[in-house]
């Protein structure tokens, strides 16, 4: 039963000061006075392309949506309010410049939120990794040899062999760029930052690591290991 229905009244309600609606937010119903204008996806494209009050009003509303969405999405990160505001502003400029590329295969607001979350996350990753070099990223992802200080002494013979096969595959079968990219990823570095240091973009980096993954798989299989055997040794941790 919708709220209000039990009292024989329907929503939304009009009163002298404007309009009252009931909204559902996280499972509970709340009352809002004078809610923002409802826009279809086509309205968003048309309003954001308009000049004057109509365009300004749409921009203000979209900015509010971006800031609210970001604040919610990043609430568990130590993101400050300035980061949220800056990212919303940067995303707003991107959205305006790309509004004609919106294809309509998603809700407009979802499309806009996808842009602002990418902008904010990229900024956060950039700040977190700004002082880390590619060498350091790559080193962080290196797999130590079986007999090392970092490894327990009682690992199985099979597991030791698998480690050596994978280490050799990485050393002998990858190009230096593929090795750096894959090890940096293993070390937890984000693709945006790896791509920057390799002087490429994220899509080209994906292609680079894809080719590396193919080479690694071939090398493991060539060494006489079946996929099932690798999985069974891995699961014996």
């Amino acid at each position, binding site marked *: 039963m919708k709220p209000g229905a039990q009292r024989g009244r329907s929503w939304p309600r009009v009163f002298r000061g404007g309009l009252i*609606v*009931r909204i*559902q937010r996280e499972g509970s119903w709340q009352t809002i006075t004078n809610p923002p204008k409802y826009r279809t996806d086509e309205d968003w494209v048309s309003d954001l392309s308009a000049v004057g009050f109509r365009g300004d009003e749409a921009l203000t509303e979209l900015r509010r*949506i971006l800031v609210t969405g970001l604040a919610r999405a990043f609430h568990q990160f130590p993101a400050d309010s300035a980061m949220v505001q800056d990212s919303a502003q940067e995303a707003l400029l991107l959205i305006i410049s790309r509004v004609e590329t919106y294809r309509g295969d*998603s809700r407009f607001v*979802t*499309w806009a939120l996808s842009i602002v979350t990418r902008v904010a996350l990229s900024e956060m990753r950039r700040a977190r990794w700004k002082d880390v070099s590619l060498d350091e990223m790559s080193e962080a992802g290196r797999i130590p040899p079986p007999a090392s200080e970092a490894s327990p002494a009682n690992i199985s013979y099979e597991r030791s062999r698998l480690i050596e096969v994978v280490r050799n595959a990485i050393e002998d079968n990858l190009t230096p760029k593929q090795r750096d990219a894959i090890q940096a990823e293993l070390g937890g570095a984000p693709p945006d930052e790896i791509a920057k240091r390799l002087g490429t973009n994220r899509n080209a980096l994906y292609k680079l690591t894809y080719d590396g*993954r*193919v080479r690694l798989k071939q090398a493991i299989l060539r060494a006489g290991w079946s996929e099932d055997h690798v999985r069974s040794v891995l699961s014996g941790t």
Partner: protein
Amino acid sequence: MSERDTKLKSVIDMALSVLPHEIGCDDCFDYFAAYADHLTNGAAMPEPLRLVGEHLERCACCMEELQLLLEAMKTQNKVSR
């Protein structure tokens, strides 16, 4: 699991999960919003969006972006009429 074992498992997953045709991060992002809408609506995924799903299974960074987008989308209210 030791740090070495985690890396070993990750690199083996990267290698063995390779598919003949995968899309990259930028191609994935082109369909990101549509994928998120389909996911929240529970609608069946058409072919291009299935490729997005496959990419997300192999790319932790894009998966993190999707989780944040889904969280941001929760701020969009349903107005009762």
